[in-house]
């Protein structure tokens, strides 16, 4: 277990499937990625988290996560829409977003990158592969990768 370096270094996992959510969280945890993990269960929730909910000014935007793991097939607002909003807003423009999805469709891959995804990772069926992938992701994005400066966020 690695202690949290910084309270603000959260990971936003946008995942509608509880199974996948559990597996992802387990994988993160098992691989020593000890950052706070916020889970949004659909696209709308993710947007609310990032930008605050319209009409409910009391719930202002949360501090930005260091990484967003974004599924594509989501209820309400789908992943690509969420990604577009993230890139459209100046505040979240440089936010690292990794697409983590079951889809291997070319058009999904192309569109994701076109909208500014930082990485595209397909969830393998094989559990060990999945575990290894998530471990590498956490390691890379949270530790090796240098995030954009705070003022940009």
């Amino acid at each position: 277990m690695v202690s949290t370096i910084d309270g603000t270094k959260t990971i936003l996992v946008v995942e509608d499937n509880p199974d996948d959510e559990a597996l992802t969280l387990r994988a993160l945890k098992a691989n020593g990625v000890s950052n706070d993990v916020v889970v949004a269960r659909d696209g709308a929730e993710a947007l609310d988290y990032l930008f605050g909910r319209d009409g409910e000014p009391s719930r202002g935007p949360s501090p930005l996560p260091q990484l967003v793991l974004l599924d594509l097939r989501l209820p309400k607002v789908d992943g690509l829409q969420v990604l577009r909003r993230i890139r459209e807003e100046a505040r979240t423009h440089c936010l690292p977003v990794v697409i983590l999805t079951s889809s291997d469709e070319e058009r999904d891959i192309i569109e994701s990158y076109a909208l500014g995804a930082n990485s595209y990772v397909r969830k393998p069926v094989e559990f060990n592969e999945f575990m290894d992938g998530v471990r590498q992701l956490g390691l890379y994005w949270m530790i090796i990768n240098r995030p954009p400066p705070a003022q940009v966020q």
Partner: protein
Amino acid sequence: MSIRRWSHWIAYVLAPLCASLTLALALVVLGGWFLHSPRLVQVHPSLVPMQFNTALGLLGSAAALLLHLLGRRRSALVAAAVPLALGASALIETYGHVSLGIDQLFVQPFTTVHTEFPGRMSVNSAVAFCGAGATLLLLIGAPRRQATYLAVALLSGALTALGLNALFGYAAQLQITYAWTTHSQMAVHTATGFTLVGVAAFARAWLESLDEFGDSPAWIGIPVLVGASMVSIAAWQTLLGLDHAQIRRVVQTEAVAIGHSVTDEVHNRLTGLRRVARRWELNPGMSRREWERDAGNYLAFQPDVTALEFIDRDGDVRWVAPIAGNEALINRTAAHDATRAAFMNLARQTHVPTITPGVPIEQGGRGFLIYVPRQVKGRYAGLIAGIFRYPAILANVTAEAYSQGFDFAVIEEGVDLFRTSGDVPTATRSWGQEVRVDLPMRDWYVHVWPTPQELTSLHSNAPITALLLGLLISLLLAGMAQSGRMVRIQGRSVREANIRLASQVREREAAEERFRSALEAVPNAIVIADTRGRISLVNSQTLHWLGYRREDLIGAPIEVLLPERHRFLHQAHRDTYVQQPVTRPMGEGLSLVARRKDGSEFPVDISLGPLHTRDGLEVIAAITDVTLHRQAQAELKQSNSALNAVNQELESFSYAVSHDLRQPLRAMVGFGQILIEDYRDRLDTQGQDYLQRIQFAANRMGNLIDALLRLSRITRSQIAHAPVNLSQLTYEIAAQLASGEPERQVEWHVEDAMSVKADDGMLRALLENLLGNAWKFTAGTPHARIDVGQERNNGHAQFYVRDNGAGFDMAYADKLFGAFQRLHRTDEFPGTGIGLATSQRIVHRHGGRIWAEGQVGAGATFHFTLQA
């Protein structure tokens, strides 16, 4: 055409015929010369012979013609030189007054007809031979031009005319036509020969000109001119002959009359003297005074008596009257000279008066005497002599002749006794006529000739008028022939133009018919309209489709064929089209509609095109009924959208498969693993094994889903052809495979520089499948080997992947490429059973073919091509 044909035919026959006749004639005459047969040489003893050289010249001419007809040009030229040489030599001899020694070169003349130079041909013959030679040389040797034939025609025409003229002269007995000089006459058969040669040369020139230039020769007027001129000349000569005969008759008559007058004059004198003598005989004792009175009476009647002498029995002049000027005669002998003495004696002895020839007379000049004997009782008693001077007693006759316009001379034994004028003018000399004067003892001739004035007046103007008129008519006829030829030629060109025109009309009719047939044959309705939109032509299809009769539409505005709602706009479009008339579809992108007569409508396509006709611009519209087409289009659209919907669904399905089917699998595998990891101690071995099986199955299902997705993606995705280095790709995949199982030893044999045009991604997938299979199935082979190479098959690139692995039973070869078809158990060789199906799909999408050969335990070979 017919004229051309018979003239052609005549010319064709005439040339050899005339040439042969000439040849025969020449040979006969030559034979005559050698055989000494005057009949052959002369025809008639009174006629001149054809000279040997003449016959030779005719032989040469005939031979030249015949050789020319036979196409022997060189020999013909040699033969043609013969008449030219003979003619020229004769002319040189005649006019150069030299002898070239050719006159009697070949034979000695034996005929009796007198000629100036025995054996020499006449001048006219010589000239004719020069002409004949020149004609033949031109005909045979000169270039075949119009000018040549014109010259030949002129020369041969002249030659023919010369010969015919001479022949005519013989027939009409006009020597002038065949004899240019007295002793140089053209023989009758020579004239015939020249005529024949001329005709033959003319006919030949005519024929050749016809052959050469395809038309009757331009000089058709010449034979007409020659022929008509010949007739004119003949008429002229006839008239001239008649005229001359008439003049001769007049002169003859006058001569006879003058002769009679002369006789009368002498007889009157004689009679007068007889009376004087008679009166004395009746009165013998007449005194001198009485006699002188009697003589005076006589002299009063005939004052032209120079003197009367009364001669006595002894021959002495006793008395003389008139006395004045004659005194010296008295008492002298009357016989001054022998002539007088002789004629006095003759008169005394015969008792018949005598007339002396011309003698000098005492009163001067010459004259003659008439002695009349006197008898008394049967006895000679002396003579009465009258002395006459010719001019004196012929004064009346002279006056009479003069009044008639004639001169005359009285000639005795070639000596002029009297002559009314001096020398006879040359012009009139030949017209002179002689008659004998009927006098006893005297042999007087009166030679009478007209005075030049009289001769002129005797000459009739008829011959020369006839000649001039005839020549004029000849010229006119020649002109007519010439213009007739032109008319004929023009007529021919008019006929030809007519024929051309007729064929053009036929062609045009055929073209029009073809045009109409084409209009009727096309499956479209064709409408032609002018720029104002008036229909000028429709085909039957139009009538059939639109339900009109033709007469309904012709002249009607084209808008009647449109629904009313479109008519106004159509007029505007029509005007626009006329501004820029090009062939194009009408109303592109619009659904055009035609309106039938009954008001119903149907969809059409219309193509427009400009027609540039003589009447100006017209527009042709080809209308196609597209009812069925439109229906089919609608149906197609419908099925297309249905297909699109299905595709859409398929797409969603694939997407769902890709995403949604895998997620539960992942959960199964993941939680199974967690179960194993976290709850191992609570599961017995059996339970753990079951969990393993569940995970294995779920993993396998994941692989299957992925493989299926790949297969469907290949079906759907676009192909981008680009050159791909197949060898390089093979190396990469081989390395990939080796790195996956580094412990394996596989021998790779990859051909270098294999290149192919294909979709890079798909080709990679294909090779991954094939090489992956080869790798997989050689896993249990001790000396694993994989060959990748290229082979040529009918010029197409064909590739193969060969391994020496497990191989397969060819009995199942057809199952290899089916989806989910496997020839091995999964635990033997893992696999989805979709790889080869995917490979085949890739190959097929590249237009290629894939097939396999194999043997269980001996490996497999996969062949594929990428472009058909």
